[in-house]
């Protein structure tokens, strides 16, 4: 049985489908991003058809003598329609150098394991079309994280920071087992935290953040976004929200954000990270503001 109820159609829903896109800042942003991109890509794809693409891949292996000094290896990969950066490095690994190391899993921008630094920007390998990039394509491991081998970086610190904010649902008054029932969330509240729940822990935001690079204790955009997801969830209650804000309002919490917007710009899931951090700053101020 479905636990979801059919919701009545909103009377305020715009009738014009073109107007629908302008509902939220996130959707507007996505619209702007896609605007004209399809035509450009088709043009570029036709141009590259039958060509090879040069990819320059960062190489480092502490266990092999001649790879201990980092360098870039060139691979000429035959272009195929719809080829992504991940497809290209996989081709290079399969056809030219089986020692080429990188993480990947789902290949559909869900697992977040193949975040690379491609042409000077943090991107998901499986989501980035080769036809959208300037040639040659320069593929490096994520900056500000130590390189373990080739494109693989050490994510321990990132995960530590994520766990610092207690990234799990906490209920302050869990009813006895026999009275347990689903905890329903209002559609408005769901809408509020919808974008923050899209995080796939790829680490692109943390890697793009200068403040996180300079301050190892800074929670970082991903962890703060994760905290936002729970702090703004009405079902957790005020007490837990205060507890979460206490974690976030520390010196190395939200206040370290310098609004560079780097995280927001590179997030492959278009999460408005800076927006969320700023909102938590305001929440922290409101919590501590007393007039007496």
């Amino acid at each position, binding site marked *: 049985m479905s636990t979801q109820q059919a919701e009545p159609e909103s009377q305020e829903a715009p009738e014009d489908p073109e107007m629908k896109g302008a509902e939220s*800042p996130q959707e*507007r*942003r996505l619209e702007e991003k896609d605007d004209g991109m399809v035509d450009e890509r088709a043009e570029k794809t036709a141009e590259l058809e039958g060509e090879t693409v040069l990819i320059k891949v960062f190489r*480092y292996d*502490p*266990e092999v003598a001649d790879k201990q000094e*980092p360098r870039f290896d060139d691979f000429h990969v035959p272009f195929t329609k719809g080829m992504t950066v991940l497809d290209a490095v996989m081709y290079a690994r399969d056809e030219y150098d089986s020692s080429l190391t990188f993480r990947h899993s789902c290949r559909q921008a869900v697992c977040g394991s193949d975040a690379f630094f491609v042409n*000077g*920007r943090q991107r998901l390998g499986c989501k980035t079309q080769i036809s959208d990039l300037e040639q040659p394509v320069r593929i490096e491991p994520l*900056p*500000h994280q*130590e*390189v*373990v081998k080739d494109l693989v970086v*050490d994510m321990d610190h990132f995960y530590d920071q994520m766990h610092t904010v207690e990234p799990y649902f906490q209920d302050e008054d869990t009813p006895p087992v026999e009275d347990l029932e689903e905890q329903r969330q209002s559609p408005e509240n769901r809408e509020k935290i919808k974008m923050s729940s899209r995080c796939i822990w790829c680490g692109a935001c943390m890697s793009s953040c*200068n403040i996180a*690079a300079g301050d190892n204790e800074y929670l970082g955009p991903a962890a703060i976004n994760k905290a936002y997801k729970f702090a703004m969830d009405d079902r957790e209650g005020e007490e837990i929200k205060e507890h979460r804000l206490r974690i976030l309002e520390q010196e190395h919490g939200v206040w370290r954000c*310098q*609004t*560079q*917007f*780097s995280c927001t*710009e590179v997030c492959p899931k278009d999460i*408005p990270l*800076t*927006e969320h951090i*700023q*909102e938590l*700053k*305001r929440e922290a101020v409101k919590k501590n503001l007393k007039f007496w």
Partner: protein
Amino acid sequence: MSQSYNRGLIEDFGRWKEFSAGMWAWIFHKFTGWVLIGYLFTHIAVLSTSIGAASESTDVIQAQNDVYTTTLQGLEGLFLIRLLEIGLLAVAVFHILNGLRLLMVDLGIGLESQDKSFYASLVLTGAITVASVPTFLTGVTL
């Protein structure tokens, strides 16, 4: 993990061409902030010459021969000082405009246009600075 490679900050700075609008705004804001602090101390140092002026007689001050007036007039007569003043105006204007932009960001207003507002701050700073040139360079002796 046995060994890993830390690419360090040098590679970071090498990527300056890839900085985004928000990053440039941050860099310029910090830079202009430090310049303004530097100016503040210089300003205090120059103004402190007025302490000597206080001991001068009224006649000397009226004749504009006191140490404070002569120091300022001497400085204002220099082309370099006038140029620095134009630079100071540019720095202050950008810092103020970007400060307002940051205030808006803090309040969650116009977050989608944060890059455009940065460019607008730059353009406005440039326009105000250029417009100020005739005023600042009036009567300067090289």
